[in-house]
């Protein structure tokens, strides 16, 4: 579904991603783990169109999408829930969710999945998953707690009905109980057939959740394989699982 070859991304004069190869197959749950500053977020920004790659190619379902801007990629079904919340602080929770469905409301989509009722139904689904959001639907998103903002960011990314969902550090800075809820949601989304690429610093949790994993270190991929195999890998255990 997603095929990345020789991706290089330069960020403010520094090459943060130094030519990586990566494959995500349809229906898979793949994680990219690594330490702070390894280039994970930069990779995801390039894949979602927020940064232009300096070299390399990205193919999505066989189509070359290298360097396409974010707003076009969403239309193709690629959504990103960005790192550090990224909610619209002065829109209400509900308006944030509606923004997630922005592409569905486009021209010629007013029936079926783009209709007001279909979008409202998906909002309700988000509220069922995260009752906290339902309580705060008319509240400005900037007033939510970090965990609530993360719930909102993920729910919002799902509102565009993505085929490929990119998640950047969904557990960052959250209480363990909230992390549990968020990861339960991620697994549920995967069961519905959405393909996921997940970036995490919590390597254990990520590898326990995903099918396959890549390990990133200072801009390059140093290891890859089945998540279970990586969990038992000597190097990974030592460097990322603290054993």
């Amino acid at each position, binding site marked *: 579904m997603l095929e990345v070859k020789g991706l290089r991304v330069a960020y403010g004069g520094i090459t943060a991603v130094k030519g990586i190869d990566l494959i995500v197959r349809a229906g898979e749950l793949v994680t990219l783990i690594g330490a702070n500053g390894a280039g994970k977020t930069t990779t995801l920004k390039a894949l979602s169109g927020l940064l232009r790659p300096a070299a390399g190619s990205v193919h999505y379902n066989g189509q070359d999408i290298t360097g396409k801007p974010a707003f076009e990629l969403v239309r193709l079904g690629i959504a990103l829930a960005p790192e550090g919340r990224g909610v619209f602080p002065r829109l209400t929770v509900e308006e944030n969710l509606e*923004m997630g469905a922005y592409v569905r409301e486009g021209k010629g989509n007013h029936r079926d999945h783009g209709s007001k009722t279909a979008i409202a139904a998906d909002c309700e689904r988000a509220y069922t998953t995260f009752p906290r959001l339902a309580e705060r639907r008319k509240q400005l998103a900037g007033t939510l707690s970090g965990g609530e903002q993360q719930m909102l960011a993920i729910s919002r990314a799902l509102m565009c009905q993505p085929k490929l969902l990119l998640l950047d550090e969904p557990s960052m800075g959250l209480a363990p109980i909230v992390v549990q809820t968020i990861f339960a949601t991620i697994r549920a989304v995967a069961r519905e057939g959405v393909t996921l690429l997940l970036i995490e610093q919590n390597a254990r949790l990520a590898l326990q959740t995903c099918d396959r994993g890549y390990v990133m270190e200072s801009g390059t991929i140093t290891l890859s394989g089945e998540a279970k195999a990586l969990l038992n890998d000597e190097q990974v255990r030592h460097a990322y699982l603290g054993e």
Partner: protein
Amino acid sequence: MDIFFQQITNGLLLGSIYALVALGYTMVYGILGLINFAHGDIVMVGALVALSVMMALGASLPGVAVLLIAAGAAMVVCVVLGLFVERAAYRPLRRAPRLAPLITAIGVSILIQYSAALIWGKQYISMPELVKPAKIVIGGVQITSTQAFIFVLALSIMAALLWFVKTSRMGRAMRATEQNPDVAGLMGVDTTRVIAFTFALGAAIGAIAGVMVVLYYGQGHYFMGFMLGLKAFTAAVLGGIGNIPGAMLGGMLLGLIESLAAGYIGDITGGLFGSNYRDVFAFLVLVLVLMLRPSGLMGVRSGDRA
């Protein structure tokens, strides 16, 4: 007491025009962080285009029809001009340091002013009489039917704009782009188009304001956008720049302050200063706001920016 209510009425009327112009400043600032100093001059172009149409059509059509055609032409020209300025002058500088687009804006302002001087000349252009306005007197306060029309139209445009930004898809995209352009892009918003649309919308509202100024003062001039623009900018800062209801409130308040000050300054200073000092008050307000409350009356607290 009559003069008091008369000045309040004048102030609200003038303020409603300031508010419309201030919207152009505040919407662009909200979305780009850019003070588009050329906006006052776009309003001027709207006014002069409308005057040209009025003079060309003269008495060949009913006055109201001439007025509508003139306003329509002004809007078309201003929208095209606004889009062109955005595309040619500001878009190439989107990633540049903030000072560059600011200086560019001043340059564009001067360019439009002197282009207008070449096209229309430097003399005042008077408006031909199209409709004979009726005088309306309510409780000792006198206004003309034209003035009443300006006021009602200005309020309607403001209400429509608030509704549009609050409920429409484009309005939501505008607010999202303003708050976080990258994330708006992730939602599928083509932010370049939203920014262009914002310029066009500001220019269209500015064009109507320009026609109102012509109706109010009965004349236009290539330099009229300068002072009008500065006052509208002051109004936007007073309300909290970047804030749409703030620009409306700021415009109204500025109109009131100016009118009341102009009405009473002669009495207060024993005739030393006359109402020709009215322009001073707008800038006195600007200085005070910047000193005491730089974020304006309804300004955004910068703390909640992610």
